[in-house]
């Protein structure tokens, strides 16, 4: 792996609600290298989307970045003002969201919404951008008849096409880092496979790094170089995609993979219990109430991230 493009250090993002403090991201450290695809997996509420929003500077009250650094090419993003952040967001770091129906504006044409990127970051006129740049990008994401489709409104496009428009917005400025938050989960499987290979292709063509967020480990295994697993706001395991999937270390990763290894006509493997509340997370290791291997130590002491042969795991079972 080459140089680090993004480095998250001890990041803490808390939401201050009436019911208490939700520790959505709690002391997470993670690096992203140039040109790689980093997959982040976790259940809903594990903090993976909050992490993505924090990188883009999109955390709004009641959410607050309480501590830690997000260093992107030597600059700490958490220290930047809104204006400075706006220059980076959309041009150097961009995002592809989950649901094109909510993230595309229904009253503007799809081409206009992509052209806005060029207006904001390259001082181009929208009309010119649509004709030249946007048509070119639509061709890249394989939207048929691009010169016509730039004038189509979102409702005139199918779900797959809308997702392609969202991807166009993400890659318009050829960012160094693209964050894709479940970009295919609103799509049907046959289209999902197509969009996935498209994203992968563009990623290697542009040579950008990508953070790919999903709860589907099978999908992550297909796209990522490395995979990070999150549980209840904590990072529990990071490693090469192949290692994490084929030889998981953390009991949670093991259980998660076990639970999707379906066999014919036998009981499905189960993780007992339910994900914990983030207002009152369990003491010690947050996974201990559901863990098969939990000992007394796990209930009291919070495990630290440990590095074992190039892999990172957060569990008392390993090393010391």
């Amino acid at each position: 792996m080459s140089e680090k493009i993004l480095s998250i250090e001890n990041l803490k993002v808390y939401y201050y609600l009436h019911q208490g403090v939700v520790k959505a991201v709690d002391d997470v450290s993670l690096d992203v290298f140039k040109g790689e695809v980093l997959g982040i997996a976790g259940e809903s509420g594990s903090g993976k989307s909050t992490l993505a929003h924090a990188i883009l500077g999109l955390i709004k009250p009641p959410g607050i970045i309480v501590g830690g650094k997000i260093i992107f090419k030597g600059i700490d993003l958490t220290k930047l003002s809104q204006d400075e952040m706006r220059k980076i967001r959309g041009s150097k770091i961009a995002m592809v969201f989950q649901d094109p129906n909510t993230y595309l504006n229904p009253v503007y044409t799809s081409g206009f919404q992509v052209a806005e990127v060029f207006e904001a970051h390259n001082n181009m006129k929208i009309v010119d951008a649509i004709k030249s740049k946007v048509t070119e990008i639509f061709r890249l994401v394989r939207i048929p008849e691009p010169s016509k489709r730039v004038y189509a409104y979102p409702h005139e496009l199918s779900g797959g096409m809308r997702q392609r428009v969202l991807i166009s917005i993400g890659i318009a400025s050829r960012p160094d880092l693209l964050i894709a938050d479940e970009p295919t989960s609103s799509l049907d499987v046959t289209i999902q496979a197509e969009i996935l290979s498209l994203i992968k292709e563009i990623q290697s063509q542009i040579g950008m790094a990508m953070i790919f967020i999903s709860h589907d480990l099978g999908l992550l295994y297909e796209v990522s170089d490395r995979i990070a697993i999150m549980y209840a706001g904590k990072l529990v395991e990071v490693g090469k995609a192949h290692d994490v999937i084929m030889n998981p270390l953390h009991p949670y990763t093991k259980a998660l993979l076990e639970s999707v290894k379906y066999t014919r006509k036998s009981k499905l493997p189960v993780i007992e219990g339910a994900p914990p509340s983030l207002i009152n997370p369990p003491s010690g290791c947050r996974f201990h109430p559901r863990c098969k291997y939990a000992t007394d130590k796990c209930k009291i002491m919070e495990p630290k991230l440990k590095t074992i042969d190039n892999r990172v795991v957060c569990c008392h079972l390993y090393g010391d």
Partner: protein
Amino acid sequence: MSVLLEAIHVKKYFPIYGGIIPRVVNYVRAVDDVTLSIRGGEVVALVGESGSGKSTFGNIVIGLMKPDEGRVLFEGRDIYSLKGPIKKEVRHNLQIVFQNPDSSLNPRMQVASILSEAIKEMNPELSKYEVIEEVLKLLESVGLNPDHAYKYPHELSGGEKQRVAIARVVAMKPKLIVADEPVSSLDVSVRSQILNLLMDIQAKLNAAILFISHDLGVVWSISDRVAVMYLGRIVEIADTEELFNYPSHPYTAILLNSAPLLTNMKKVRSEYLKPIGEPPSPINPPSGCRFHTRCPLAKEICRREEPSFKEVSNGHYSACHFIDKAPFT
């Protein structure tokens, strides 16, 4: 096993209104001529993409939506022409678990009242106390504790809510349960708990299940037979292992091919089998074979003629002009 439920040439078209004076301008052909039979105690999976009509078909089977054409027979009786006590009895035997428990459980009712409604329906002679006892028994049978009886749905987690929905079904002791994507709204780590529960219930009641899903891994694990739907039609139906190992319809092969799976099931890997474009709209389905616009094998005949069901092997039917090209493995 004898046939429990039969859907014969079922059609359901939803009208689309348009114009200044609203009138019907077209139809969404949600379910277009589907024939399927379910045997007692059998788990039949119905898979397909969104908009293929699988949920509509589930609703028709259970008696919630009268088909425009065709009949649904439960133990030989047409469920839409029944009246009086027989109708009630048949309906008790047909139950459904919906995808989203937030919209299928009344937010103003406590779990105990939700369940006792069902219990009183089955046993009107029970006293108040006996009903409560039954509620507690039901809760236990779905893995909830007595504390849950006096909670409202919003106080429960997604998995617990789905357990309540299942408990309500169990109370009716049905012979057929339609499970319409019962776990797709739940967290990954909770899904297998609910599926195991559903299968336990199925074994205990010896009920048949029509399992509607797009998760092929789960379908592989629990079903006896699989029917694949595309644009309102069943395109292929076979025993689960047969279908996964020897898909004979190109759409089935593509479906199996595109799902990212970590399972130990055999994976179809024919590189030339990639779908072209996106699903057409069910408002104006393509002529001939409905899949021809996306099919990599399509020939002239597919545009003109609608393929009929052909038997590939025992109990394995496929609607494709080129079943001799199969299996795609």
